[in-house]
């Protein structure tokens, strides 16, 4: 049967998901579609169960974050049996690209400001016992404008570089300092590998993080252990 198929533009083919830019509801509402396709090598029943579970888990975390005022894309629609999540399209770039540009252009103050925001957002996540699970610099976006409303007064408003977390596919609820420390460690590694001059930068992230909630100190302590283990592991090769 002919359907008004919304045009899809593949933007990423990951190991687990196909990610498209598309529209939801009406051609005027941009959306991101994250599709976890069937894995033919898995047992069909298990496959369906895993797909559903991952879709629902990502959706619940995204929705929980929004409820807490943590900037993440809003979920528009979920078809967990097909492995599809439609969510708010974030018009911006990854923090990695944005940092590249800022550093290249010597916009030091903006860089500092961005690092501070980054630390605060992660702190808010952890304060609420949410662990991102894959906190790399491609899973953090920065947007400079925001569409106000889905349809209601759909105008663009300028916002000051806002940090938005995406890709909570590996996220979970956890009260463990270890899990939170690993988030920070992953982020640190990502920063250092993409921005080798970033040691100071990441320090700014940590400073903001540490000042943002009560449990932060304990997580920072753990981070030292996690780093140590990471170093040992890389020495062992």
């Amino acid at each position, binding site marked *: 049967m002919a359907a008004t198929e919304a045009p899809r533009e593949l933007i990423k083919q990951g190991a687990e998901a196909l990610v498209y830019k598309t529209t939801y*509801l009406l051609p005027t*509402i941009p959306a991101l579609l994250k599709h976890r396709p069937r894995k033919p090598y898995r047992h069909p029943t298990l496959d369906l169960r895993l797909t559903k579970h991952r879709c629902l888990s990502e959706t*619940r975390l995204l929705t929980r974050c929004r409820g807490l005022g943590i900037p993440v894309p809003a*979920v528009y*629609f979920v078809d967990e049996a097909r492995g599809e999540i439609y969510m708010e399209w974030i018009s911006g770039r990854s923090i990695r690209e944005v940092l590249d540009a800022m550093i290249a252009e010597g916009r030091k103050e903006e860089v500092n400001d961005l690092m501070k925001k980054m630390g605060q957002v992660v702190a808010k996540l952890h304060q609420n016992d949410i662990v991102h699970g894959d906190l790399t610099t491609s899973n953090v976006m920065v947007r400079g404008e925001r569409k106000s409303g889905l349809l*209601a007064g759909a105008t663009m408003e300028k916002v000051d570089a806002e940090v938005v977390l995406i890709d909570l596919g590996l996220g979970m609820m956890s009260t463990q300092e270890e899990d939170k420390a690993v988030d920070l460690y992953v982020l640190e590694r990502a920063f250092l590998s993409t921005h080798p001059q970033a040691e100071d930068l990441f320090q700014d992230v940590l400073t903001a993080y540490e000042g943002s909630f009560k449990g932060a100190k304990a997580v920072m302590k753990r981070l030292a252990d996690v780093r140590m283990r990471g170093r040992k592991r890389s020495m062992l090769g």
Partner: protein
Amino acid sequence: MAIHTIQLQNIPVAHEVHIVSFKDVENASFLREQLLGGNAEFEYAFVDASTIVSTAHILVAVHQAVHKLLVNEKLRTRNVHSEIVFSLSPNNNITEAFRRFGIGENTKSLLCVKISSPEKTISAAEVEKHLMESVKGTQMEFNESTIAAETDWANVGKCYKMKGCKEISKEVELEVLGKMVMRSVG
């Protein structure tokens, strides 16, 4: 003609959504009785428009209900039209959903939604004619400002457990949609 016909994304073209909006409705209890009595001529989603915050809000509910129908997921209610009303709810209590979002004795502003499907094709003109004959009220355009004018924020606050919202904004709209999504994923 003030009837609004929409083709939703990713829904087969044979499914059209007809929406007619009324204010100052005087015969809500008659209309409600037709629904309760299962009168086949009155297979509509009759939504109390005071609970609706934007055009997207009702369209999201329509999309959820029609999608369920198409993928053969079991509907929780009698038909796709009642499922639209249920889809507006932030929880799984069907009785409460109808009481809050469906037409009530005292409903003054009303959104009527009719789905035309391959099995039951119905044109915009037919829908409008029937509703004009049946609903005693003032027909309105279906757009952002007519919807906003009828929103009762105290009621929305109660229905979605949200405090202090007085007007539509991106955050409010997405918060409401978020609650509907959460119900659908349990």
